[in-house]
C-alpha cells in the first residue's frame, strides 16, 4: 500500500515536470491563434478574394485531423531542399516550434469561426446608434462591436480553449516531453499504464477545471448581472 502510494506520488511528480511545457504550448499557440483569427476576420470583411482564401483555410484546418497537420508541418515541409536551405529551417526542424505552429494554425481556424459568429450576433441597431452619435470606425469597433461580439463568443471560445489544452498532448507524438510525452515514457518504462495514465489524466482535468473557472470569472466580469436578462 505504501509502496503503491509512493509510486503514484513519484509518477505525479515526474509528470508535473512536463506541465510548464504543456502550459507554454497552450498559451503561445492560443495567443498566436487569436491574433491570426482576428487578422482573418478583418481580412474577410476587407476583400472578396481574402474571404475566399480564409474560407478555404478554415475548411482545411477544421476538416482534417490535427495530427495530420502537425505531421505535415514537422515532416512534410522538410521534404524540399528549398525549405531545408531556407532561413526558416532552424525553426521548422524544432519540434516545439512545429507543435506550436500547428496548434496555432489549428485554433486560428476554429477561433475565426467563433469570432465570425460573435460579430454576426452584434445587433445592427447598436452599430447604427454608434454611427448616429458620430463614432469613427475604430471607436465603434472598440466601444460597441468588439465588446458585444466577445461577450457573445466567450462560451464557445471557452470550449475551444479546453480543446486546445487537450490537443497539446499530440505534441508528444512529435517527440515533445510535455505531460503526455512523459506519461508515454513512464508507461514504456514501468508497464503500469493504468496508474500512470490516470495520474496524467488527473493533471489535465485539474488544468481544465481551473481554466473553466477562470473563463467563467471573465464572463461574469464582462456581463454583470442582469445585462443578459
Amino acid at each position, binding site marked *: 500500500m505504501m509502496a503503491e502510494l509512493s509510486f503514484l506520488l513519484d509518477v505525479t511528480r515526474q509528470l508535473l515536470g512536463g506541465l510548464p511545457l504543456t502550459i507554454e504550448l497552450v498559451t503561445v499557440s492560443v495567443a498566436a491563434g487569436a491574433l491570426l483569427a482576428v487578422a482573418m476576420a478583418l481580412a474577410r470583411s476587407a476583400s472578396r478574394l481574402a474571404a475566399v482564401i480564409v474560407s478555404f483555410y478554415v475548411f482545411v484546418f*477544421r476538416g*482534417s485531423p490535427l495530427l*495530420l497537420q502537425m505531421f*505535415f508541418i514537422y515532416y512534410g515541409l522538410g*521534404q524540399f531542399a528549398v525549405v531545408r536551405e531556407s532561413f526558416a529551417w532552424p525553426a521548422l526542424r524544432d519540434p516545439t516550434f512545429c507543435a506550436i505552429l500547428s496548434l496555432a494554425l489549428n485554433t486560428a481556424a476554429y477561433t475565426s469561426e467563433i469570432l465570425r459568429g460573435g460579430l454576426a450576433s452584434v445587433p445592427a441597431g447598436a452599430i447604427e446608434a454608434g454611427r448616429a452619435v458620430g463614432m469613427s470606425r475604430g471607436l465603434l469597433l472598440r466601444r460597441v462591436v468588439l465588446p458585444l461580439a466577445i461577450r457573445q463568443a466567450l462560451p464557445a471560445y471557452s470550449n475551444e480553449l*479546453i480543446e486546445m489544452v*487537450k490537443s497539446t*498532448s499530440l505534441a508528444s507524438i512529435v517527440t515533445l516531453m510535455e505531460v*503526455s510525452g512523459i506519461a508515454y515514457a513512464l508507461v514504456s518504462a514501468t*508497464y503500469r499504464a493504468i496508474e500512470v495514465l490516470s495520474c496524467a489524466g488527473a493533471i489535465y482535468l485539474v488544468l481544465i477545471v481551473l481554466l473553466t473557472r477562470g473563463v467563467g470569472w471573465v464572463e461574469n466580469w464582462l456581463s454583470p448581472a442582469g445585462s443578459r436578462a
Partner: protein
Amino acid sequence: MGSTLRLVGFGPTGWGGTLLEGAAVTLALSICAYLLGLALGALCAWGRLSGGRAVRGTIDVYTTVLRGVPDLLVIYLFYFGGGQMIGAIAHLFGATGFFGLNGFMVGTIAIGLVTGAYQTEVLRGGYLAIPKGEIEAARAIGMGRLLMLRRIIAPRALRFALPGMGNVWQQVLKESALVSVTGLAELMRQVNVASGSTQLPFDFTIAGFVLYLALATVSGGVFMGVERRLAHGERMARRQRA
C-alpha cells in the same frame, strides 16, 4: 508532379490502393465509434434527464472526466492499460512480456467513450429544446409515455440535436487519426508509413488532407440531407408564408 501522381496513384509503384484502404478503415472505425458513442450518449442523456441523484451524479462525472482528458491518453489507457491487464492474467499462466490489444477495438471503445460524453450533452440539449407546449399537447390528446416518446419527443429532439450530432461525427472522424498510435492501418497510419518508405512526406500528407476532407465533406453532406428532411415541415411552412 507526374511522379507524385504515380506514387499516390494506383499503378504498380502507387500507394493509392493502400491509402484508400486506410480511408476505408478510418470510415469503418469512425462509424463503429460513433454508434457506440450515440448509444452511450442516448443512455446517459436519458439518465441525466430522468434518473435519480446518484445516476445523474455518475453521468456528470463521466461527461466531465471524458471531456476533460486528452483523447490520446484515453486511447493509450485502453491500449496499454488493456494490455497491462491481459498481461497480468497471462502472467498467472506463465507468459511474460507486453501485450497489445487490437487497435480497431481499442479505437472504437476509446473514441466511443469520449464522444459519448459529448453526445450526452447534444441529445440532452435536443430534448430540452422541444417547446413545452408540444409535449403538453401530446399529453392532452391522451398519448401514453412510450407513444409520446416515439411519435413526438424522439423526432423533435432529433431535429434539434442533429446539427450537434453532425459536429460530433466530424469530431469522431478527426479523432480516429489518433488511433494510428496503436498501429491500426487507418488513413493517418498509412500516410505515415507511405511517407516513411518513400521519403516523400509532403506528397503523402497532402494526399491525406484530400482524403480526410473528402470523407468529411461527403459525410457532412449526408448529415445535411437528413437535417433537411427532418426540417421539411418547417421549410414548407416558411415557403407558404413567403
